[in-house]
């Protein structure tokens, strides 16, 4: 096998697929550099996988004579994560565009970066959606005129390097399609890094966004408008290498060497700093105020996601034996949703899974602080409250009679019960306010069941007081019937009763804690 690797050449990585990019597209340059670099990496072809999302750039895997997957828009990083966990020996590249990984796949990009899966992400940034014929993307600067922003985009753009740093990426670099030598170096470095490597490559879409990166590629301007980052070196740029970056407080500034400014005054690049602030500051050097940096912004070590996940899996198997997926499927609670409104939901009972010896440890920790006396009170049963007995009427009572009863007994609400004395409804002043007031209705002609709230929310005497307050404060129920286990009303809780109850709880002997 080792012999075979040594003899690989660029040609071995060229597939038989017809390349479908527009002539002149920057994607070709990236493909060429990848095919140039890989033979030098000492990796067997069958151990390489290129995984892409959707876009022009995402057609890349077809053109590589390796394993590859053209997957779902924005989800290449996710598919790649699964693949690495299943087979950590593979070398996996994620090929993605600015639309693919920063629009629809933004979330997936963030999480793969912070997890530090051992992948190489190559983001082809052409600041446009190429495949769909030229809509602005999250890296198109405000004002960009495209087919979907004919008057200029009004959206703040993303800085891909800043995003990657904020997402805790361990390797962050930038290159550009037309600087092929630089790109080759960066691709090699990314391949060598253990952990997620994030490489942004400025790529020219000569059809829909031609010249987006010309400031960084045209010979006459690029030396003054870009800077190549070199680890351990002062940050110097310019055709005559006479300019540099100095840091003034938290702000970077461009200075000219000479006249009292020497190299030792300049910011020295250090890609290994644990604190990402330095790398972030460099990522904010943007055109045209500053020279735009190319090179490795950050390269630090952190534990690898799949190493840890796999180790945990091994440990679990050692402690508990190999699992049975089929048994797991059938061990959870499932139920059948019945047809028709009255049918009862059927819970399917399955054999219990053997209890785990890992999970109980977690459950034993009680995150709750000890309860205060007041908190405890909220768990006390409603029966400990001094509730008034409810006034009950039958469903056929006329509203006129009900109103008279409420008036003479000074009640805000009546409970409606059936012949067995079971709770059927609640009839309150609120119903009169909402459904009768201001309308010409003969109250002697209608019965309470036409106005009452049917099957009202009721609580049992054994339920906690906290739940009463839950219903009152979150749902605004002013009156809550309290019933016995059979459903017969035995009490009526109201705002007023709860106010009286709480008013009595507090002494005037107070302290803040």
């Amino acid at each position, binding site marked *: 096998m080792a012999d075979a690797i040594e003899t690989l050449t660029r040609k071995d990585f060229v597939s038989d697929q017809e390349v479908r990019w527009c002539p002149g597209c920057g994607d070709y340059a990236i493909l060429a550099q990848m095919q140039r670099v890989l033979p030098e990496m000492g990796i067997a072809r069958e151990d390489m996988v290129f995984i892409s999302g959707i876009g022009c750039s995402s057609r890349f895997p077809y053109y590589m004579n390796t394993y590859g997957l053209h997957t779902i828009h924005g989800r290449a990083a996710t598919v790649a994560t699964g693949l690495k966990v299943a087979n950590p020996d593979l070398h996996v590249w994620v090929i993605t565009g600015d639309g693919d990984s920063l629009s629809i796949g933004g979330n997936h990009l963030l999480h793969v970066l912070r997890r530090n899966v051992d992948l190489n992400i190559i983001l082809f940034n052409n600041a446009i959606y190429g495949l769909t014929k030229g809509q602005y993307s999250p890296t198109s600067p405000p004002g960009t005129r495209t087919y979907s922003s004919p008057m200029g985009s009004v959206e703040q753009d993303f800085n891909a390097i800043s995003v990657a740093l904020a997402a805790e990426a361990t390797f962050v670099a930038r290159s550009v399609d037309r600087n092929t030598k630089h790109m080759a170096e960066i691709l090699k470095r990314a391949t060598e890094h253990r952990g997620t490597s994030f490489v942004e490559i400025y790529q020219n879409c000569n059809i829909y966004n031609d010249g987006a990166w010309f400031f960084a590629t045209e010979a006459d301007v690029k030396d003054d408008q870009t800077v190549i980052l070199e680890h351990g070196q002062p940050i110097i740029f310019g055709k005559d290498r006479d300019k540099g970056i100095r840091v003034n407080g938290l702000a970077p500034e461009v200075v000219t060497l000479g006249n009292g400014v020497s190299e030792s005054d300049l910011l020295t690049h250090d890609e290994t700093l644990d604190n990402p602030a330095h790398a972030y500051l460099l990522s904010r050097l943007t055109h045209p105020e500053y020279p735009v940096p190319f090179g490795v912004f950050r390269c630090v070590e952190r534990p690898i996601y799949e190493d840890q996940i796999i180790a945990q899996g091994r440990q679990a198997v050692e402690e508990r034996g190999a699992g049975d997926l089929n048994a797991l499927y059938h061990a959870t609670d499932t139920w059948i949703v019945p047809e028709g409104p009255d049918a009862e939901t059927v819970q399917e009972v399955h054999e219990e899974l053997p209890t785990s010896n890992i999970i109980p440890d977690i*459950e034993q920790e009680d995150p709750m602080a000890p309860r*205060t006396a007041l908190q405890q009170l909220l768990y006390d049963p409603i029966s400990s409250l001094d509730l008034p007995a409810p006034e009950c009427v039958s469903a056929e009572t006329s509203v006129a009679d009900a109103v008279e009863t409420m008036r003479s007994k000074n009640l805000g609400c009546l409970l409606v019960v059936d012949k067995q004395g079971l709770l059927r409804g609640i009839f309150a002043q609120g119903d009169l306010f909402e459904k009768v*007031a*201001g309308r010409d209705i003969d109250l002697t002609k209608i019965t309470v069941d036409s106005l009452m709230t049917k099957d009202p929310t009721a609580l049992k005497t054994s339920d906690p007081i906290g739940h009463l307050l839950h219903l009152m404060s979150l749902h605004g129920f002013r009156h809550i019937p309290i019933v016995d286990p059979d459903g017969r009303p035995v009490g009526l809780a109201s705002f007023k009763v709860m106010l009286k109850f709480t008013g009595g709880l507090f002494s005037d002997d107070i302290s803040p804690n």
Partner: protein
Amino acid sequence: MNLNYSLHNDTVKHVDLSFYVEVQKDNPVDQVIAKMQDSQRKCALVMDQGKLIGIFTAHDIARRVIDQSEVINEPIETIMTPDPLTLQSDTTLIEAIRFMSDKPHRYMPVVDADRRVLGTLTHYAIIKYMSDHFPEEIYNLPPTPDHFASARAGA
């Protein structure tokens, strides 16, 4: 910060006093009721040239209007409760709770030192204020008390 301390230090201004509408003394009763229904407020404060002169609530509707259609076109002034009790804005919440739980009033207008109306204190607003102190015990509950999981599903 415990609730007892808060109730003794916060004043009625610290709870939601917005559960009311303002009407003018010559507004007819049916218009006042419509305004209350539209805004789902069960309390109307009756004003005369910017001064509070009366109060009219859903309780009054149930007791004095619902089966007496002849009052519907009268000005609200004739049926309101005149000169309602008010609370000063610097009343502590514990004072307000004790005051309101001793009296039949469900709605108490709150006024400043110049008797300008700042809002109306309601039973609901006080209960909400107190519940806010116990999110775990009151808010983070399952829909019904017996919905508690027998085993933890998440985390």
